[in-house]
């Protein structure tokens, strides 16, 4: 096995275990992994931003293709750095103004389209459908999301939750009934979403564990086992030191 693969296995295993120690308590190993993680991720972002933004989006199109229109974003980007010079700090507002202005403009029609019109369109469904014979019927198969009964339940759900979000009227009388129904819908949905997510999270844990099991193999020099021993030893040692320190005020 190539040396870098072996080293990679040991480093990956070690860092995995260090982060897991967080479940026990805060300790030097977790702090080490945490600070290393922040450092590596910042370094990674810097390199990637340099490579994509400075080189690929700015330098190459300007120098190779003569696309000098890119001087505009370059200038706006520079304005942002004016913050460091109190006298011209206000210039950075121009950059914020541009970013936020474009963002707001882009948002308005797109939000109306996909979050209002689309949602309304999907909620407005006929509460009757055509039977195969030709006459209208009411379908009530709960398992078919498109059945009329489900359309009705969906409509009640959307309407009652919307009532919960009325702020400028007092929740009394019928509004209160609707809003309370809305809360019940909210709770069921939150519970369901919680239960649904468990699987995705467990998949990640299974992924980490299968890696650890793989690296416990003799081919990798039993990295997991040795590093697990070392981690536990360090935890015990740091726990003991912490106890010694506690009487002195922690």
């Amino acid at each position, binding site marked *: 096995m190539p040396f870098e693969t072996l080293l990679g296995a040991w480093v990956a295993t070690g860092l995995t275990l260090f982060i897991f120690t967080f479940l026990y308590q805060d300790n030097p190993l977790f702090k080490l992994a945490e600070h290393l993680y922040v450092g590596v991720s910042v370094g990674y972002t810097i390199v990637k931003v340099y490579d994509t933004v400075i080189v690929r989006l700015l330098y190459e199109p300007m120098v190779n293709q003569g696309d000098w229109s890119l001087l505009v974003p370059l200038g706006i980007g520079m304005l942002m750095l004016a913050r460091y010079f109190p006298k011209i700090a206000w210039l950075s507002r121009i950059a914020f103004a541009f970013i936020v202005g474009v963002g707001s403009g882009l948002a308005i029609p797109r939000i109306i389209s996909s979050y209002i019109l689309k949602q309304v369109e999907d909620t407005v469904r006929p509460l009757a459908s055509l039977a195969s014979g030709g006459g209208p019927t009411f379908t009530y198969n709960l398992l078919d999301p498109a059945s009329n009964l489900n359309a009705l339940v969906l409509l009640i759900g959307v309407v009652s939750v919307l009532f919960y979000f009325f702020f400028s009227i007092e929740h009394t009388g019928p509004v209160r009934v609707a809003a309370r129904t809305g809360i019940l819908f909210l709770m069921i949905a939150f519970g369901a979403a919680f239960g649904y997510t*468990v*699987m995705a999270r467990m*998949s990640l*844990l299974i*992924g980490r564990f299968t890696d650890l*099991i793989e690296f416990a193999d003799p081919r990798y020099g039993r990295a997991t086992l040795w590093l697990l021993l070392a981690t536990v030893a360090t935890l015990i040692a740091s726990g003991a030191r912490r106890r010694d320190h506690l009487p002195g005020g922690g």
Partner: protein
Amino acid sequence: MTFAERMLHIDRRIIFLVIGVCTLLPLLYPVGLAIKVSPEVRGVHDYIESLPEGSVFLLSMDFDPASKPELQPQAVALLRHAFKKNLRVIGMTLWVTGTGLADLVVSQAAQEMGKVNGKDYVFLGWSPGVGSLIITMGQDLYKAFPSDYNNQPTRELAVLKGIQTLRDVNYVVSLAAGTAGIESWYVYGKDKYKFELGGGCTGVIAPGLYPLLRSGQINGLIGGLRGAAEYETLIGQKGRAVAGMDAQSATHVAIIMLVILCNVFYLLIRTSRGQSGQPRG
């Protein structure tokens, strides 16, 4: 503090331990609980099953290490199936960051099934440009990949004999963790070069791919770890995914038990105090 109260304020590290054990044990000693096979996974399986010996099967592993837990078991199961059927296997990836991983997966599966590189299978590696790469492969495979991952000239490989373009490939399966994957293979490849296409994907992007399945643009879809477990069940080789599903079952049931227990303790306290709890904000 009564027993019930103490149990309600149990050290959460005990819960962590329960979850850890419930995950680890099934992974080490899988039980292989029965798994209902869905028609979309069966679609991929049955198509490979129907291919005659020596047919060409292209597996594009379009994911990076971050999606390894879900997609690697799918890749392993598909490769085992294809090798067992004595298909000619072509491996590749559209994701540069997944190249090393994909190579490892293919060579390990081949080694296990006693297959020879260059004769029974080939790993082409990665090449830039997603759409344009697929189009080039559709016109001339050897132009897209003049040499394979191990720098062997592809034209001389026995496994690729008689294969000129994607049109000569019988079945393509893309295992995708994002948009460069199933969608690209459909838009740039299947539409034009008329090979059959199947897919596998992470649980997160699966809902977005069901429309492709319904319209017949892909003939099957393996979704997430569960899909991989179903596939392992179909080929009768229970591996990582089945073990993973056992772990899923164990942890889910463990959490349900914990919740039921905590409610029992809670009700005990409430009845002993004879007062109602406070509503939550």
